[in-house]
């Protein structure tokens, strides 16, 4: 789980092109959307694609999305639970 969390931090930085932060700057308890990082709905959809591609986990409706993307911990937990690749 910890490994997945660290891996997701790197992937978020890469996918969303955050040039000015490192994995250490992302707190897994902080809210993802509308938090310090300035992540919005388009970023979330970009992450949805990355998660489907890299972990074969689909997040295809807004209600589920709101729950899963509450913070990094929730996201990692969902992927951990659903991914056939972990």
């Amino acid at each position, binding site marked *: 789980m910890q490994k997945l969390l660290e891996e997701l931090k790197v992937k978020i930085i890469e996918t*969303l*092109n*955050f*040039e*000015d932060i490192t994995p250490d700057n992302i707190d897994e308890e902080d809210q993802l959307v509308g938090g310090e990082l*300035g992540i*919005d*709905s*388009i*970023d979330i*959809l*970009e992450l949805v*694609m990355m998660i*489907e*591609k890299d972990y074969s986990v689909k997040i*295809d*409706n*807004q209600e589920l999305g709101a729950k899963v993307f509450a913070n990094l911990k929730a996201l990692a937990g969902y992927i951990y639970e659903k991914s056939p690749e972990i």
Partner: protein
Amino acid sequence: MTSVRIYIAGIGLISPLGSGLSETRDSIRKGKTGIRPVSLFPVAQSRPLPVGEVRGLFETGGIPRTHQLALIAAREAMSHFGDAPDAVVMGVTTGGMLSTEGHLKRGDQAPGLFKYHSTGSVAEYIAGEFKCKGPAITISTACSSGATAIKVALEMLRAGQAGKVLVGGADSLCRLTYYGFNSLQLIDPEGARPLDINRRGMTVSEGAAMLLLVASPKAPDNAIAEILGVGLSCDAYHPASPHPEGAGALSAMQAAIKDADISFTDIDYINLHGTGTIDNDLSEARALNVLFGDRKPLLSSIKGASGHPLAAAGAIDSAICAMSISDKLVPGNTGCDIPDPELGLNPVKKPFEAGIQTVLSNSFGFGGNNASVVIGSPEGRGRAVSLEKPPWLAVMGSACITGAGNADKTVESISKGRTCKGMLSNREISLDLPVRTVRRLKRLPRMALSLATAAHENSGLSDMPSSIFFGTGWGGLSETYDFLSRLFESDERFASPTDFIGSVHNAPAGQIAIQFKSTGPNITTTGGDYSFEQSLFVASLLAKNIEDTMLVIGADESHEVLSGLFDRSVLTDRTLSNGGGALCLKRAEKSSGLRIFPSFFENSENNPPVISSLISKLGDQERINEEYGAILVGIPGAHREKGQKQLDEFLYLSGFRGPIIDYRTFTGEFASASAVAAVLALRFVQTGEIPEGLYGKKSFHLKGKGMLAVGLGNFVTAIEVINL
């Protein structure tokens, strides 16, 4: 002063609701829907999404689907008219994309295949078919393109620059929009249900509508309706989501009502943008509730039946509104069973007959680009306006980017006898912009934002520009390429929402609006090598109603794969080059200062006297030699021979004796090179001299004269720059 009203004298349309006015009327009267699972191209999903597809249309002779749709609509609109229109204005966002996708997917890169790729090629194709000698302008403001095109045509007629304009919008379905909107989770798998409590999104669709607009003191015999006014605004809020309170929608509707010189209580029916997405319908409803309160007129969205035909939407909706007035037919809001109580709207559920006099049609798009059109009965009170020439524009600031760097570096480079060809890195382009601001932006939006920021800084003005006019020949090529590459590499399983939003031609102008909080008109023109000229032309048409600062920008990125395929001029130079220019302008009111005016724009096809027409527009031999110290000439590489002949003819007929500077020889080949030329002309006129290296070994003194920037090739354009 002559006073005119602007009538709709001809209408043509094609959509999933039918081909032609008669079939469309029949479909609307019977409440038919044109939405079915996609069959135009094979898709990866096990359950193809519903779309609005026009049936019975096949690609012939390499003419893409969008162009065919536009031609069908244009023929119907022009069926009672023998004469060529004075201008063509079209809203287009996909252009030849469907054909391009097919070629790229197959890896087919034969020259000539991409001739009709550009959005601008649709208006040029229509202009060619109807032998139009005037401008062919292309508006790409995403889903409001068709309605915004009507605004441009309206102002062209009100300015007396044309007597009749063929205006409309066209877009065909393509993979980019099908998968793009799906990547944003904006598609309702059940088909669009605008305003319904269970709505889950839109249905992507296609079609075209063309209107022949005629300026006349009184209604011509064939008048179907009258365009009373059009209002534009920009949300300046988000690249793809509407303002949650509908602030932009509200101000577009208010501007339209003001332009039409009516009261909101005069409106009998509203044709909603009503796409069926949760956010759009909510935002539009909030704006309607503020504007109309409990006095809302009849209202409905046709998109539950037709789907959303993107750039064609505003034109199709306007055509249907004109028909609702002339045929006394109010369309029903197909797809809405139980209106969402949160919206506070009570749409017309079934079509019915009623005499309506005045209608409002809404179109909103990505980039927060909003347009509302007010159409009235030709027998109504009407909207008479005095013909008024567009004003000159005072230049408050300017900036450019070339392969050499910013404006100072560009001038320095050419004054040393070097070129400014080549491309800066993305990092160099956006050096002065915060990394967070540009994190999602690829090459073109970074360039546009840098140019806008630099031109505004150069102006020294503290107030922010309210209106943005952006010209680009090819739009965000990096985003388009990356979107399609990822789509095809993943067997159409993965589509990037960020790249989709960025691939829309007006995305850079939307970014500028967000940065500067520019909530006024926000127009992107995409007319190939003349895109910057088109944006300056459109800015001058709208300037009479813009008190604040305007930004006029032209920019293009070069892409190592796509530029050579799309732009044949690029292949004529070994160095890949790109860049652009930006001007910070105000309506010229003072009697002194630096000013600019787009004085000429004509199609050179089917127009043998185009050069003598240019000369008579500029005055005569004597005036040209007295007013202009030097001329910057732009000849796109692909049209070198034609352009050289035009230049020879110009020199012969004008007897011009000053320096002629062939600027593409040092800027390199890219569609918006003319924006760089305009900035150079301004700098030279301001300093009063052309630096050494550019014209002979010594600097050339302009002796207080101005300069001309002339564009040659398939169109002939002239921009005058003077310092009073």
